């Protein structure tokens, strides 16, 4: 199969690049040193396309397309960093910040948080939308991990890693829209979960301080998501 993959050429930010035809715009961009911001994407997990940070312009297509889920095609002309995209990304990130209660100063992931760093990356100086300030619970019932909904951005990396890599599917999302929330089993305290294997992968793929190890103080929770591609590969070898 793999031998029959065609090589195609396309343009990313005015640069001609070659790619295999089953690759995504994001993969090709990365291979060629073009950085596209992402939040929900994580190498090793099925892409979701929900965070919208990686949207790009493709000539001839009126709507913006997520780079993480759009496969390249011959002659495609992609723009990843127009002024309009920069502005929209900043706006999207502001919506992220306005949704829950992200108080970096007192967060265990302070300094290691992808959301926090993304604000710097896209030059978001402040949030000009009103904050929604929802009341969110902190689930500290598990003896090793803590789930703090205040910091959750619903990227579903934890849900995907729990299902796709660990295979226990303890985590999922309940409700919908602005009410959506990560749950464990039947929306019960994590500590009562019978399906959780305590593997901790969810904690390490979480981009923010929503999932942390118990006992971590402000700025102590660094994550080790770099293990994930390795785990994915191992799984693929097994199956």
């Amino acid at each position, binding site marked *: 199969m793999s031998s029959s993959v065609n090589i195609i050429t396309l343009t990313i930010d005015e640069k001609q690049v070659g790619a295999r035809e089953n690759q995504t715009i994001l993969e090709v961009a990365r291979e060629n040193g073009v950085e596209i911001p992402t939040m929900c994407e994580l190498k090793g997990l099925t892409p979701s396309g929900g965070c919208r940070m990686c949207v790009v312009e493709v000539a001839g297509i009126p709507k913006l397309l997520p780079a993480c889920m759009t496969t390249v095609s011959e002659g495609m002309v992609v723009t990843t960093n127009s002024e309009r995209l920069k502005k929209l990304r900043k706006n999207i990130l502001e919506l992220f910040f306005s949704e829950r209660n992200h108080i970096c100063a007192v967060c265990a992931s302070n300094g290691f948080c992808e959301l926090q760093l993304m604000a710097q990356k896209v030059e978001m100086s402040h949030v000009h939308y009103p904050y929604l300030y929802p009341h969110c619970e902190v689930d500290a019932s598990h003896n090793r991990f803590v789930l703090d909904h205040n910091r959750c951005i619903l990227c579903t990396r934890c849900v995907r890693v729990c299902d796709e890599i660990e295979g226990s599917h303890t985590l999922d999302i309940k409700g919908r829209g*602005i009410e959506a929330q990560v749950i464990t089993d039947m929306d019960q305290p994590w500590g009562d979960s019978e399906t959780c294997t305590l593997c901790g992968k969810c904690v390490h793929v979480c981009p923010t301080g929503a999932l942390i190890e118990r006992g971590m103080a402000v700025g102590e929770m660094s994550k080790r998501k770099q293990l994930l591609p390795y785990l994915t590969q191992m799984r693929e070898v097994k199956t």
Partner: protein
Amino acid sequence: MTPEEFNKIGEKHRNKRDEFTHNIRVCTAAACATLKSEEVKKAFEKEVKEQDKKKTCRVSGTGCLGLCASGPLVTVNDGQALYAKVSVGDVKDIVNNIDKKPVKRLEIPADTPFFARQTKIALENCGTTDPESLEDYLALRGYESLYKVLTEKTQVEVIEEMVKSGLRGRGGGGFPVGLKWSTVYKALGDKKYVICNADEGDPGAFMDRSMLESDPHSILEGMAIAGYAVGADQGYVYIRGEYPLAIKRLRAAIRQAERNHFLGKNIFDTPFSFNVELRLGAGAFVCGEETALIASIEGKRGTPRPRPPYPAQYGLWGCPTLINNVETLSNIAPIFRKGAEYYASIGTEKSKGTKVFALAGSIKNTGLIEVPMGITLREIVFDIGGGILGDKKFKAVQTGGPSGGCIPEQFLDMPVDYESLAGVGSIMGSGGMIVMDETSCMIDVAKYFMDFCKSESCGKCVPCRVGTAQMHRLLVLISEGKASMRDFELLEELCDVVKSTSLCGLGMTAPNPVLSTIRYFKDEYIAHIVDKVCPAGVCVMESKEEVVL
């Protein structure tokens, strides 16, 4: 099966029907049923029996006759006489006069604009068949198109015919049906599916419901023809769980069709097999979006995924899948019966054929109508619709539901077609048409739709999940007189962000009601924000106390 054999089936039922001199049909679709039309029907049966006219008069239920505001409706001999607001007490009079002149006090003249101005194709059988009777459908040349298609045409010919008809998707987007069929036909895959999208989610729309309740067989026939054309042997009807009567009738119709071999294995002894199953929706507007609908049929949360790949290539369980909505599919059999040329001769250059609208709101003749494309809004509202209730002043007509917009008076003479509606900031949508008078506040309307989108957002993508919540909040502030012009600017900016970056159609169109009301009724926004008054007197201003913004 030979053509003679097939023709005999229809003939048999037609003869049976013609044994009666009088056909009394009582509308038993949702609206009339609410007004106790079942009791009226029973009264007719009783009366016919008592007057000993059982041999000459046949009493049956029928689908929607359209003029829902004046139900229960009764027809005698399919249009010879139409009676409105029939109560049990009126039954005797009607039966007494059945051989004579119609009962004047109940009669609606046939030349009433409401009926005279319509062109019925998709609704052809609505009101002339008993939706629970396969025989009635067959008597009206039902399943003849399917027979013709299966025995006389190749798949490519069927698709060419669809292209020729110019039919465009009636679910809202207006994508050319022939093109969609041909994409699925060309897609590689051993297994293909046809899905009928009957998850009518627009608040204020009841076209699909009426069609499913009035003429379920024509939808099944349309699906089977589509299945043959694209090479699918399995169909699903994804239907709203909130429509119990439609579900019941569709289930019954599927059983009847299976039993009579119009569905199932080797239909009409051809190699073509096609089965239809129902899948119940469970109250999620986003499932009208194709990929979300597929997720839902697969038993998952109804969240969409980015397209491409389109379902035509990668759909249900990864197989090429054709998704058409109810109205689109109910046009198929008539197109093959009457010819693509006939269908294409109706309507405008780019929008062929007819469109069904659910006319509601502040209008005299609420109900279901089918009109040729290109008719003006004024004709719909003032001729067919009979004008504004209580003769108040017309303010706007809302089309396309939460994805559409409010069209003001200055466009009343604009032709109704896909491009014109899009040009004024609305969309054709599935056919909900809500008429509003001077007592409606446009901010209140925008707030209503944003509340809808907020609670129907699936939550997967950030712009829609958070953006709709933010926009709704701002609209609440405006409606309460607590907003500043800065909030208004924020609202406008959010419209752009949500429209440009949302994952699926729900988010991309969610700002439309706000954008269109800003475009045509900006003075009302200003009145709420600067003067703290609601010109229509709908919004309750909490002002007085100092606003710190």
